């Protein structure tokens, strides 16, 4: 079981590096995912960390901590992506407006030339 997890972590990191290599991931996002991949690899090799952390926090069923952290990470990631999408929407709206106005100016110029 642990071996499967280690292999998954390694494959995940390979996929990340391939995506970065082919410029399919922007720097700021690739850093976050690399961190996630490294943490996943460390935890898969040293499973005891999760047990120790669960004990410290007072959780009986250690994997529950893993799920909790995993879910929290996903929520934060989705929230972060939502913020990014909002910014991009703002930019797209502005670009669309600028383009519309430029079209108009070009059209007017062509009309006055003919």
């Amino acid at each position, binding site marked *: 079981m642990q071996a499967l997890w280690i292999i998954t972590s390694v494959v995940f990191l390979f996929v990340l590096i391939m995506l970065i*290599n082919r*410029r399919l991931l922007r*720097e700021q996002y690739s850093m976050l995912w690399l961190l996630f991949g490294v943490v996943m690899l460390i935890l898969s090799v040293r499973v005891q960390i999760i047990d120790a952390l669960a004990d410290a926090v007072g959780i009986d069923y250690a994997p529950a901590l893993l799920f909790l952290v995993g879910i929290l990470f996903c929520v934060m990631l989705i929230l972060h992506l939502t913020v990014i999408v909002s910014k991009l929407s703002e930019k797209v709206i502005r670009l669309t407006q600028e383009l519309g106005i430029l079209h108009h100016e070009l059209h007017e110029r062509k009309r006055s030339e003919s």
Partner: protein
Amino acid sequence: MNAVITKKDSTVTGESLRQGNTSSKILIIIPAYNEEHSISHVIRDVKTHCPSAHILVINDGSKDRTREVAEANGAAVVTLPTNLGIGGAMQTGYRYAHRYGYDVAVQVDGDGQHKAEQLYLILEPVLSGKADLAIGSRFIEQTGFLSSATRRVGIKILSTIVSAMTRKRVLDVTSGFRAANKHAISVFQSDYATDYPEVDSIVLIHRSGLRTSEVAVVMDARTGGTSSINAMRSVYYMVKVTLSLFIRSLKAAKPVEVQS
């Protein structure tokens, strides 16, 4: 991309530039964000010391009168509908240079820190074919405005990392005062980091099989306005740049074909 480097303009001096003795098509790119106070001085400075060059101000979504002032001083202006930062702004300039076939593209900051009288120093290595990217360095002779102590430490650390990655000693890795030839322009117009691109671009140039050259220059402190980088952001900047250099090392290298 195949191109021929010819040894034109082999003797470039401050005087020869001021007299307009150059057959090369030079574009001076001035990225500016809210620089209405310093932009006219910068444009006039460049016109005095390099009158044959074309000046392109990249108005990076300024909220003040940067565009009006720049146009009033006779510079061509590209106004970006939304602020992109120094990386996006400079890449706009490189795209323009690439599209309109300029031989050299020079970066001169809109805040007045770069002195136009030293343009010949960074143009010489590029025009004579010795380098594809010439960087004006404050730290070769350690004269002029050298930035704050904290930033100098940060720059030294980054310099060590970049020198190790490129296997060539580079000192002033954050200097924006640089000249790029057609090969470097073709690289930058398609790949230029949006955040803190000065450092990343040095590694990118080397991985593209091109050459950099560092020349000693003197820089001024800002003439007006406020900097977008302050002391508190320096540490954050350091961490981000180091990580982005690591990411750059993972990206596939695309060597540029050069015929000579």
